[in-house]
């Protein structure tokens, strides 16, 4: 994008001033290079979001923003229900509550290395991944309704993990605004065999080590130090979330017509939060969130069992679990008054700063952990939420590196086997369910995650805590 189209507010904050039908300005958090490299669609999509009824303060994009569906990926926007605010399918996306959970293993990298191959092989056998894979848990539709109502709590009560885990999951593992009657039978049919599966695309399980610590106090609160091994799991609500998105695209499309909301892009369809359609979608999204939290809890438990079996002396303790495709009802300060807002984060991580009462006691002084997945060949990051981030962007941060090359271009350029060999030469084991998937996810097909994280840190959205390097990866 041409940076001259923006008003530079600070080093890493760029504004599209309010004009035409925009109800608020738009803000992009990025350094000059990231902004220049962003596609023009981010500009168009962000200004479209700024035109939606009831939007508060600004339409925002995180440093990893790119062209999405209605909202840009990396888009953040809050809506006030008392001022005609809307809820939009594009602001949540198709993979509802896709997110990352990270576990510490209480073991150093050097001690793990002799067991690494055996560990990743066993994890690959135990964690269903890739298209067509199904989990060991087979549910009836009525049992699935319990998953949608109770989230990670359902998983724990079925023996997948411990009650102590709940404190370390956003919303304590369960959003209460979830009503399974608002989710279609097709969505439930699709999900019956998918609880406890990783999926494919950019979803992964990664064994990593802490390469560098930037913030000792926060790292210590999260229970990690240099060379410690962690396992990160990135996945979401699987087929259920996708089907909810697909179903409500039609429902909110009709609602937007009914309530005379002009739609500039079909995936930006929306309904007033206070309308029956808007309320139904919010309750269906709640089901998607609970499904994702349950799914990651099951995967976390399966991982923990394998770790304990293969690596003597290691354990698998949850650091935190947080999503990056959600719409949540949150309280935020607007003009010195607390307002209840519906915050959409599409490809953006919730990032509560220090002192927030939702955070576990152990983290309340340092802020919420945020996990930024890089690529399987480079690195990932742990950040922490800040007070500034609350003021700047409703406590939101980036979520990943973002692709720089299309999937088709990637499979033309690389073969799955060559990606595996190249990673092996760099000391990283890749287990891929699909060779095509491995080629598509080649590290070189992604943007520089370090630059994205640096811009997030420098803009004040979040603070760097640690850099993680991959040791072994499972790709779906």
């Amino acid at each position, binding site marked *: 994008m041409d940076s001259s189209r923006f008003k530079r507010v600070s080093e890493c904050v760029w504004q599209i001033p309010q004009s035409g039908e925009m109800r608020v300005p738009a803000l992009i958090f990025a350094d000059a290079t990231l902004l220049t490299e962003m*596609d023009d669609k981010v500009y168009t999509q962000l200004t479209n979001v700024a035109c939606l009824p009831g939007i508060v303060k600004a339409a925002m994009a995180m440093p990893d923003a*790119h*062209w*999405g*569906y209605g909202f840009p*990926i990396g888009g953040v926007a809050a809506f006030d229900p008392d001022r005609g605010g809307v809820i939009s399918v594009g602001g949540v996306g*198709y*993979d509802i509550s896709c997110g990352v959970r990270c576990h510490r293993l209480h073991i150093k990298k050097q001690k793990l290395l002799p067991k690494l191959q055996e560990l990743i092989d066993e994890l690959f056998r135990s964690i269903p991944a*890739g*298209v*067509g894979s199904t989990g060991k848990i087979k549910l009836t539709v009525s049992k699935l309704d319990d998953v949608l109502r109770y989230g990670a709590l359902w998983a724990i009560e079925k023996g997948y993990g411990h009650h102590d885990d709940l404190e370390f999951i956003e919303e304590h593992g369960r959003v209460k605004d979830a009503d399974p009657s608002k989710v279609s039978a*097709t969505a439930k*049919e*699709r999900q019956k065999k998918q609880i406890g599966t990783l*999926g*494919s*695309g950019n979803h992964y399980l990664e064994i990593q080590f802490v390469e560098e610590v930037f913030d000792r106090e926060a790292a210590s609160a999260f229970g990690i130090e240099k060379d410690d091994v962690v396992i990160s799991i990135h996945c979401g609500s699987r*087929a259920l979330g*996708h*089907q909810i*998105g*697909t179903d409500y*695209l*039609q429902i909110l*499309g*009709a609602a937007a017509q009914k309530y005379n909301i002009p739609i500039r*892009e*079909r*995936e930006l369809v929306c309904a007033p939060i206070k309308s029956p359609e808007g309320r139904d979608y919010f309750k269906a999204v709640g089901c998607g969130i609970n499904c994702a939290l349950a799914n990651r809890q099951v995967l976390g438990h399966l991982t923990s069992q394998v770790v304990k079996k293969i690596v003597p002396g290691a354990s698998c303790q949850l650091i935190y679990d947080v999503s990056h495709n959600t719409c949540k009802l949150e309280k935020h300060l607007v003009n010195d008054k607390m307002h209840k807002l519906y915050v959409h984060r599409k490809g953006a991580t919730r990032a509560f700063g220090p002192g927030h009462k939702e955070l576990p006691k152990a983290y309340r002084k340092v802020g919420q952990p945020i996990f930024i997945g890089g690529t399987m060949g480079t690195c990932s990051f742990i950040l922490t939420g800040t007070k500034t981030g609350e003021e700047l962007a409703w406590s939101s941060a980036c979520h990943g590196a*973002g*692709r*720089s*090359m*299309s*999937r*088709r*271009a990637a499979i033309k350029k690389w073969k799955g086997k060559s990606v595996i060999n190249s990673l092996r030469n760099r000391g990283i084991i890749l287990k891929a*369910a*699909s060779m*095509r*998937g491995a080629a*598509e996810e080649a590290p070189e097909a992604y943007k520089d995650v370090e630059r994205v994280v640096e811009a997030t840190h420098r803009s004040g959205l979040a603070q760097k805590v640690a850099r993680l390097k991959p040791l072994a990866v499972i790709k*779906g």
Partner: protein
Amino acid sequence: MGPQNMEKLTPEWQTFDHIADIGIRGIGQSVEEAFENGARALFSLIVEDISAIAIKEKREINCSSYDLTGLFVAWINTLIAISDIEGLVFGDFRVCINDASLFGNAFGETWSLEKHGRGIEVKGATFSEAVVKKEDGLWIAQCIVDV
């Protein structure tokens, strides 16, 4: 993979670029053939070798929307859902379209890793780049699928 040359249109299926996901496109002499080829493009992503899909099962499909573009997205989403729920992959299709309603059949078999290979999981069809139009005497039906 289907032929990729877009300079001269011929009835076929194609995939096309999108930064994070991937596009599917069907081209045909009729809107029905474009829809059928669009479905072939979809299953070319889900399996490694679409030509390996034998016709052992038939599924009837009915869907509707408020316009032709919406109908193409609904058609692809219906196929994704059936494939997902029943573990089937499809390689051949016959559809009849009346306004924005579709009735058709999808032909295929149960997916097997050994026989069909593992492609990528398609989460859903989107309205991004979605269009059904007539160009140079041929029908084009396309959309981006979220993967």
